[in-house]
């Protein structure tokens, strides 16, 4: 081997920064607004009663924890003051250009939510905390699968607006197959096939014909709505006993684990679909970032030409991953029918696919992030149901808006600048 060596590069002087970016006051303003709103509405304005009760254990728990009863106004006041303190902290951090961790929005959100619960549940029956969380997780299931689907497609460079259609197709086929075979599990097997078919259509038009992927996605959503609604009102409606009977997935209780107070019933008293969701999130979190498959998928989504020049087949990779993504969303679609124990109904996904897309972005194209975002949306969705049962002073129409308001605030206020895969939505043409 030759011993020629290169001369060391000239020392690069370290960057000395004299110019600073203007301070962004968005965070402090948002926090301040919500803390003040919490103080005025939940602590100072009169509530429906003087005491709020939180029920922590469910009836079947091994460890019974007594319900917690607090003074509504006092509890809300304390929490609102904490929220104001956090807003002050955010202001100080912005002023001194310090970065605070992700704990701040999480803690702030929890504090304001509890202040709200204290006010909303004042003088009403007890608020079931476990039920609230259990329902949140349950409602988050289709969102998680949808977000994972979007992540698989977009990480490989295909924009998947068709999540909604994939969920709906999965819900439909799961219901029909489960009904015909009288087995909810067969429905669970069939659902991914329906989603994969929608994914296949998406990727064919995107990769082979270079059609604008957003347009293809929207058209596919409409197509799936049309096809399932047509079959529903013709075939399914004619003989619902054969084609569209209810086949709920059984709840599988994991021994021991399900006895953990609060978390046990929430996490380990669920259907197979939820356990599959845990597995999907964990496996994807590992494989997207650590495996050969994940590396190639991300390379194709970031810089397809670079992938091509090292011998990776760009379009084949995209086709495979988009179909896989479709299958994942299809599986999530099974939630609406077999996991929820319902028969198929027209357009029963109700825009969940789009919320899933928001969860994917809020989770920064990251499985764990998507899970957290989906849980947030699931929680806001479930809050309205639980409060409806408890009985709150808020009109139900306004409560119906909650998930969407939370989505808009979360995406606009918290996401900030995120970086989508660089080649997302751009067809690869040599």
């Amino acid at each position, binding site marked *: *081997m*030759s011993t*020629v*060596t*290169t*001369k060391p*590069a*000239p*020392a*690069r*002087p370290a*960057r000395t*920064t*004299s*110019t*600073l*970016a*203007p301070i962004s006051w968005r965070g402090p303003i948002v926090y301040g607004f919500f803390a003040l709103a919490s103080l005025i509405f939940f602590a100072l304005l009169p509530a429906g009663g003087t005491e709020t009760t939180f029920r922590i254990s469910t009836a079947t728990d091994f460890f019974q924890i007594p319900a917690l009863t607090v003074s509504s106004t006092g509890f809300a006041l304390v929490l609102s003051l904490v929220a104001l303190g956090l807003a002050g902290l955010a202001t100080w951090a912005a002023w001194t250009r310090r970065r605070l961790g992700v704990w701040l929005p999480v803690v702030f959100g929890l504090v304001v939510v509890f202040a709200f619960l204290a006010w909303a549940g004042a003088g009403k029956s007890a608020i079931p905390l476990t039920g609230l969380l259990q329902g949140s997780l349950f409602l988050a299931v289709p969102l998680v699968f949808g977000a994972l689907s979007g992540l698989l497609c977009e990480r490989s460079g295909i924009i998947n607006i068709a999540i909604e259609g994939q969920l709906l197709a999965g819900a439909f086929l799961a219901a029909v197959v489960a009904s015909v075979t009288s087995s909810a599990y067969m429905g669970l097997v069939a659902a991914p096939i329906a989603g994969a078919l929608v994914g296949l259509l998406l990727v064919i038009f995107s990769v082979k014909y270079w059609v604008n992927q957003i347009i293809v996605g929207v058209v596919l959503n409409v197509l799936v709505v049309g096809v399932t609604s047509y079959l529903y009102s013709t075939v399914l409606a004619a003989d619902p006993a054969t084609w569209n009977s209810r086949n709920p997935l059984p709840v599988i209780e994991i021994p021991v684990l399900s006895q953990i107070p609060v978390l046990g019933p929430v996490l380990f008293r669920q259907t197979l679909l939820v356990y599959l969701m845990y597995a999907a999130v964990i496996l994807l979190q*590992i*494989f997207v970032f*650590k*495996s*050969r*498959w994940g*590396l*190639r998928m*991300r*390379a194709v989504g*970031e*810089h397809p*030409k*670079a*992938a*091509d*020049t*090292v*011998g*990776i*087949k760009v379009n084949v990779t995209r086709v495979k991953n988009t179909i896989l993504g479709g299958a994942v969303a299809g599986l999530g679609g099974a939630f609406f029918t077999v996991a929820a124990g319902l028969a198929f109904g027209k357009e029963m996904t109700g825009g969940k696919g789009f919320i899933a897309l928001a969860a994917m972005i809020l989770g920064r194209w990251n499985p764990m992030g998507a899970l957290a975002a989906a849980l947030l949306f699931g929680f806001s969705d479930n809050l309205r149901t639980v409060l409806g049962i408890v009985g709150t002073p808020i009109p139900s129409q306004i409560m119906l808006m909650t998930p969407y308001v939370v989505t808009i605030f979360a995406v606009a206020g918290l996401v900030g*600048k995120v*970086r989508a895969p*660089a080649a997302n939505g751009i067809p690869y043409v*040599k």
Partner: protein
Amino acid sequence: MKLELRGITKVFGSLVANDHIDLVIEPGEVHALLGENGAGKSTLMNVLYGFYDPDDGQILVDDVPVEFAGPGEAMAAGIGMVHQHFMLVPVFTVAENVALGHEPVKGAGLIDQSKARALVREISDRFGFEVDPDAMVEDLPVGVQQRVEIIKALSRDARVLILDEPTAVLTPQETDELIAIMRQLKAAGTSIVFITHKLREVRAVADRITVIRRGKVVGTAEPSTSETELASLMVGRSVSLGVEKAPAEPGEAVFAVRDLSVIDTVGTPVVDGVDFEVARGEILVVAGVQGNGQTELAEAIVGLQTPVAGSITLDGKELVGSGVLDVLRAGVGYVPEDRSTDGIIGTFSVEENLVLDLVDQPPFSRGGALNKSVIRDNAEKRIVEYDVRTQTVEAAVGTLSGGNQQKVVLAREMSRPLRLLLASQPTRGLDVGSIEFVHSRIVAERDNGTPVIIVSTELDEVLALADRIAVMYRGKIVGIVPGDTDRDVLGLMMAGVPLDEAVAQAAEHHTVLGEADLEAEAAPSHTVEDAREEEIQ
């Protein structure tokens, strides 16, 4: 490994990019492929690399005909390529980029990170590259990114390494290091194909030179051939390699930038407290490696970027805060860096492009309606004046060659009375003939008494045009130096070394190319200056 190309032909639509090209690369030689922009060098290498299918011809490896269905097969045959635009995923680490496509795996398809890192370290140590396998590629300077590309090729046991315009993004010192690496690889038995249009580099490193013009091999040359001869072979006629330029006669300083700062979307200062002024009748060239804030500086002057601090004054009038149109109306002529996206509208006709920023004014329009005949007359006049080669003025400007597109931009921007001319990369991607034309126009504008700012990353262009040079590094001006400053000094300044230190370092050791220049000066067998004198006589 011996590599041979026989009769390679590649056609894109009506354009014959490669026309029966024959080329032999002997084992362990540095073979330079010299040609102008658009001569077909990169196409040829993309064919060789399996990225394009040739329409005709054969590739032989060690005298055995081969066919590559894709880059993967070319790589397997021992051909590695370092692309002009790096084929690196910016958000991956060095190790991930090197491993991509042939990842070492342990069970279940998980990547064996330690093996991937070890491979990078091994090659990096062998050649003294000092590349950290865990560094994120987007955080690395271009010179280091290029080494990552070389490591990538070597990790696949490349025995022929194609370097496509490798020096385009490097400072002279980085170029020097690259030349050392090339010599080292050659000593280790690797053949190198060195694609370039820069004559000095070719003469410094090549063992043999093949010249390509308009898709055809027009000749081969020895490295001892003079630059003038190589240039005329490359262009097809005798050319002058410099610009005829009288010394500047600067008047009063009418344009000034004071303490200007611009911040990018993530909050990093990209222009950082920049301070300079330009006088009437002088050319100030802003030099620096691409991505050190020159683009943002130019855009801030025109009003495309909003500075966070500082002022820009022209004839005593503040430009910061006024819109782009107001800046143009104040007499600023702006030639943008990327003409195809910012300078012209490709699907519009030549005549329309010639009045893009004038159509809202009489005589080109009245009461909101275009005055077609005035626009036509204007176009007819300009294409003669600026020697725009187009069939008609109605032709879509996108169908013209790069040089003619640039002339359209210049014609538009310089056809109004100017108080300042600001041109970014005015000759990027142009052929030698167009470069000569553009340069002479810029000098003529200076001689009219207009202050001129040129932003350029090409050192040849910097030295050809500049009366003064402002060198930028990471958003700051390292120093403003006279137009005849030594290349090596400029190169060091482009890497952030302050002027006095740069002078001292450059005196200590010259770069390979710098030494070649000195030798040429000491023994002028047939230098550029001679050639120019001959032409004048």
